[in-house]
């Protein structure tokens, strides 16, 4: 096994990798930006090297500098975590060129599966269902009508050069096709200077269900079951759970085998995730591949008993998978909630500042993966995630009860958090029944969310609290506190969205 690895990341995922490496007797090298000099992960690692200024572009994204530090420290391999350079083929290549093992797939696999059109071609080759439609520009309205009749309404007209919903139209009936196609073309022309459009089946309110894959370098692959990630807000996952309530053994096997075929067809190795969308009739279609360890991997670990980082390290070292598909046993239910420093009452605006107070929850059935402690600061430089709270129980109701308990007890002072939002989401009928899809939060939950009436006890407590605060107003330092939030310099950060 490797003797020493470098972790090209920060925060909770760096801590996560350090923990497993330590359990395996592997020394760890952290790299830190100015801001992270004394952050938990930088303290925890066996060695910590300064890499640059606080903005990621001047630190965690410096590929050459990472290689230099790996060489200097004698690290044999680099774990990229998620985000930053984890899905950059050139970084995997740079590692290989310098004789350092990249703990992840090859450059080729990252670049090939990272491109949506390439990945779709492979999916078709591997006989994995994709959303029906054309992948080439339509020549005429007649051709569009023909395709639409074949795949069935409703259909989606999409600009080839598209993005951000521009040049996109949902068509429910054939009589609207012509006019909607013209509108999409006009929009595409004015937005992208290219009016070519294609057409695909419109999947209404789909679920997002993904499969965890492990593939070794000897042609073996297993899937570790699904993760239900449909609780999303603006394409950001909010709550993930496994199993998905829609899953039965037959569907799990079918989707899992599809995911395996896809990675084997593309020569993919190490841990990866194959994402699908699923319609109301449980018909599934390939969406994309995430060529890295994912934020929500812990729920799969809870349910399989495996340590995915350990498996990643073993695969990267060239070992064969020590289990076959039939050895994978899925037990119980697990849920992950992402606690973010954001103001749920104010359009989820990130909330920056110092965490003055933190009272965490643990105990039976609760796991917390976090890189933040009391006294740490949530900055503008990085992600606003404070913690991943994971609950596990023999069944779904137990896992939900544990998560509710943990969220209720989790107190953070200094920044605003989404804890109350997560709690009301967990308590919604949709989550309780498991009947939700990717549009649920925005289409339904946000609109119906209303405060339940305060109880008499709460009014009593709030009255006393306001009286105490009011009576101490003269000699308190509330105003000083308000002014004391961080005034860090702004820096533009652009790196991939790994959520």
């Amino acid at each position, binding site marked *: 096994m490797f003797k020493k690895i470098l972790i090209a990341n920060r925060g909770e995922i760096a801590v996560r990798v350090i923990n497993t490496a330590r359990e395996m007797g592997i020394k760890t090298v952290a790299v830190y930006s100015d801001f992270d000099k004394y952050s938990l992960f930088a303290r925890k690692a066996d060695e910590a090297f300064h890499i640059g200024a606080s903005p990621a572009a001047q630190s965690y994204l410096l590929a050459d500098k990472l290689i230099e530090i790996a060489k200097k420290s004698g690290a044999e391999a680099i774990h990229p975590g998620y985000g930053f350079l984890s899905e950059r083929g050139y970084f995997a290549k740079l590692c290989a060129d310098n004789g350092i093992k990249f703990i992840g797939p090859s450059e080729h696999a990252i670049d090939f599966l990272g491109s949506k059109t390439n990945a779709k071609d492979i999916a078709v080759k591997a006989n994995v269902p994709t959303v029906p439609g054309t992948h080439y520009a339509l020549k005429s309205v007649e051709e569009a009508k023909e395709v639409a009749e074949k795949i069935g309404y409703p259909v989606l007209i999409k600009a080839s050069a598209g993005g951000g919903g521009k040049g996109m139209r949902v068509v429910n009936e054939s009589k609207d096709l012509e006019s909607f196609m013209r509108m999409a073309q006009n929009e595409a022309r004015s937005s992208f200077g290219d009016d070519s459009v294609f057409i695909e089946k419109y999947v209404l309110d789909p679920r997002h269900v993904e499969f965890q894959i492990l593939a070794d370098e000897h042609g073996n692959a297993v899937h570790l079951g699904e993760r239900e990630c449909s609780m999303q807000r603006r394409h950001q996952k909010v709550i993930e759970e496994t199993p998905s309530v829609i899953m039965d053994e037959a569907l799990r096997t079918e989707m899992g085998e599809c995911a395996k075929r896809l990675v084997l067809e593309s020569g993919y190795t190490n841990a990866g995730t194959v994402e699908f969308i699923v319609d109301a009739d449980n018909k599934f279609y390939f969406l994309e591949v995430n060529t890295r360890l994912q934020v929500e991997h812990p729920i799969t670990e809870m349910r399989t008993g495996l340590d995915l980082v350990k498996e990643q390290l073993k695969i990267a070292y060239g070992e064969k998978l020590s289990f076959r598909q039939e050895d994978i046993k899925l037990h119980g239910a697990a849920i992950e909630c992402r606690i973010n420093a954001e103001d749920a009452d104010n359009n989820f605006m990130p909330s*920056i500042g110092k965490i003055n107070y933190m009272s965490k929850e643990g105990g039976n059935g609760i796991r917390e993966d976090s890189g933040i402690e009391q006294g740490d600061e949530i900055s503008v430089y990085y992600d606003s995630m404070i913690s991943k709270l994971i609950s596990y129980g023999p069944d779904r109701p137990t896992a939900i009860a544990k998560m509710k308990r943990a969220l209720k007890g989790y107190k953070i002072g200094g920044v605003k958090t989404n804890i*109350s939002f997560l709690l009301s989401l967990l308590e919604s009928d949709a989550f309780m029944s498991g009947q939700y899809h990717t549009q649920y939060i925005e289409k339904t939950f946000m609109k119906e969310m209303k405060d339940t009436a305060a109880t008499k006890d709460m009014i*009593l407590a709030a009255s006393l609290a306001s*009286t*105490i605060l009011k009576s101490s107003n003269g000699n308190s330092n509330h105003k000083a506190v308000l002014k004391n939030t961080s005034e860090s310099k702004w820096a533009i950060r652009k790196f991939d969205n790994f959520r």
Partner: protein
Amino acid sequence: MSNYQTNITGQTELNGVFLNGNNEFLFNDKNYTYEYKILDKSILLLRINDKNYIVEYELNEDERENNEFTFNIDSHKITMVCKNELDILVDKIAGGKKDKKQKNDIVSPMPGVILKLNVKEGDEVKKGDVILVLEAMKMENEIKAIRDCKIKKINVEEKKSVNKNELLVILE
């Protein structure tokens, strides 16, 4: 002064609170004992008749000027108006006509870049309309109108970087 009057914002029911300085208080003429500990500048542990309450609260200067306090108790958000004897007296003199102090300045809540500006000076906007979009911490954040109003002045333009607390827009 230890006489206070509280009510939930928007509701008419008034509660009387009298702190008698001996870890006891009267709430609507009923006697309670209490203890409290400030766990943090925004978290208060209250123990009323031996029952625990964790009360999280916001530090909002505008609210405080209007005697408002927003709490989160057991994931319930409650905004209380709390007045002391002087406040009540001032109210009486003003004949209840004292307008709430209105917030006219929109300042940047964090450093970022103005991605989109949806209004121009002189525009009338409705409560909830998106005035501008601020990109910060890799998120697009919509800054919305907190009430129906007119845009008096705009201090920024699209693509401009702004600092925290920088004045963006003035409302009328």
